[in-house]
């Protein structure tokens, strides 16, 4: 069981406001990339986020372009889990492949507000929030393995015997 502070957002948040396109070719280090997370959605986020905080969003989080930085910007900011009513298809894939856990939970964003805390129980596949229990849909074992291994790149590095990047 882990405890997390939440940042709550609405429906149809696209990748352009999660990580502005104008930075995609210029910013390279994790710190630089994290510093612009959600810049055009919530200017308070990048300076206020703490490692372990999670995003709770409405429908269609991460729609739009397939840019991977829209996931890594949150990963570098220390966000381990993104919970949304639904995800853009490419965004969901990018989460798994970058080692961030995407959780589909249709109602949670209605019950919590930014700054509140929730409890996540991975074993029981449950979220406890606002005095209620929300189910976490299980992922297939192979996808779970990528996620737990930290994403696609670390998995390949282990496969090819490369210790570090």
């Amino acid at each position: 069981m882990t405890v997390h502070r939440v940042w709550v957002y609405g429906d149809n948040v696209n990748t352009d406001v999660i990580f502005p396109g104008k930075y995609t070719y210029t910013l390279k280090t994790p710190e630089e990339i994290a510093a612009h997370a959600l810049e055009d959605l919530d200017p308070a986020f990048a300076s206020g986020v703490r490692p372990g905080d999670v995003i709770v969003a409405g429908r269609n989080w991460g729609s739009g372009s397939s840019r991977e930085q829209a996931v890594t910007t949150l990963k570098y900011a220390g966000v381990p889990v993104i919970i949304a009513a639904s995800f853009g298809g490419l965004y969901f894939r990018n989460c798994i492949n970058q080692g961030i856990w995407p959780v589909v939970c249709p109602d949670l964003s209605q019950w919590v507000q930014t700054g509140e805390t929730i409890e996540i129980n991975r074993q029981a596949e449950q979220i406890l929030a606002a005095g209620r229990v929300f189910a976490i849909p299980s992922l297939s074992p192979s996808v779970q393995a990528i996620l737990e291994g930290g994403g696609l790149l670390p998995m390949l590095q282990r496969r090819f015997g490369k210790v570090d990047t």
Partner: protein
Amino acid sequence: MNGYTFAEKALARAAGLSAARAGDILDVQPDLIFSHDNSAAIRRIFEQTGAPAVVRPERIAITLDHAVPAPTTQHAQNHAEIRRWVQEQHIRHFFEVGRGICHQVISEEALVLPGETILGADSHSTHYGWLGAFGMGIGRTEMAALWAVGELWLRVPESMKITLNGKLQRGVTIKDASLRILGDLGVAGGQYRAVEFAGDTLSTLALDERPVLPNMMAEFGAMSAYLPPDQAVFDYLEPRRTRAYTPLYPDHDAIYAEEYTLDVSNLEPQIALPHQPDNVVPLSEVIGQPVQQAFLGTCTNGRFEDLQAAAEVLRGHRVRCRLVVIPASSQVFLQAVQSGVLAALVEAGAAVGTPGCGPCMGNHMGIPSPDEATVSSANRNFRGRMGTPDAPVYLASPYVVAASAICGHLADPREFLPGHNPL
């Protein structure tokens, strides 16, 4: 038990399984994978994996198309890095500056065939549905993984069936129908899904028109899109293909998450207003809006028949605003030259550029000034897409682009078509 959708059949095949269902997670081995100017960035991720070399280099295609010829030193260095990589890794299907846009070139070269699976590091990889293939866009890390191990996990998407009935009227195109679908159902209308097209309209479409539908489905949130291939497609592929193939068709009792039907017989020209491809209205509502630039090109509408349609409207006229024409490939360019279509465009005042993406994503060759409106035959008009955040971009058919170029404002092409009877 119910039958299977196209996506279920195609992905089962690509995973070497006898059957799969929507929701299953499979490790698929695509028949072809491709990337473009982003290949240098993918190479850098590939190097981090520790893989010794790419696997199956004969199934990799790389095109230089997004910023060609190189507009800056940085772009030139990027291209040079890709050329070195292609040589080092013995990637034979490499297409130089000027050959054309990835989706058009790979189609012309018949590098992917009906029933096959193609994954591309480009969001419009839905395009290949016109050949009856399963095409899907992926990210850079995913492409690096495919280079390294030749397979990738995919979740089999639920399918949605879109039936198009009736025959389009003269001056109205499948682009107008695609825009109407987006206008009706929105940019998330096909989210997570594979779209299957059906209906009697499909067989009336010329080969050059067919890619428009699956290409535009990238704007619909769809993972993939499919048209059932017919004899016209098989005939197109016959002289070009280098391997055998087996086309796949959905079962009549397959399960669809949603169905939608559109009768196109009375459809009027449509247009997407700034800054979203689903912000669609009938063209008649915005006739007369001034435009300073008209752009004819892209993987959506830069093929020979698109250029020919524009020439049909433009013959005997001079453009009143800038008209930028970029053929989708060198083959399209050549056909336009040999048929006299290009002459008609140039006589009307068009500026013609090197086959490639041109100004579609704002790299060069037609970036608008903030106060200038563009009418474009491309597929997306997100804010800043053409390089200038404030500049309004309208999306329409090649006919509408040509008519608007003549008038200097949004105009109905049907008035310029021979044999047109005023309504």
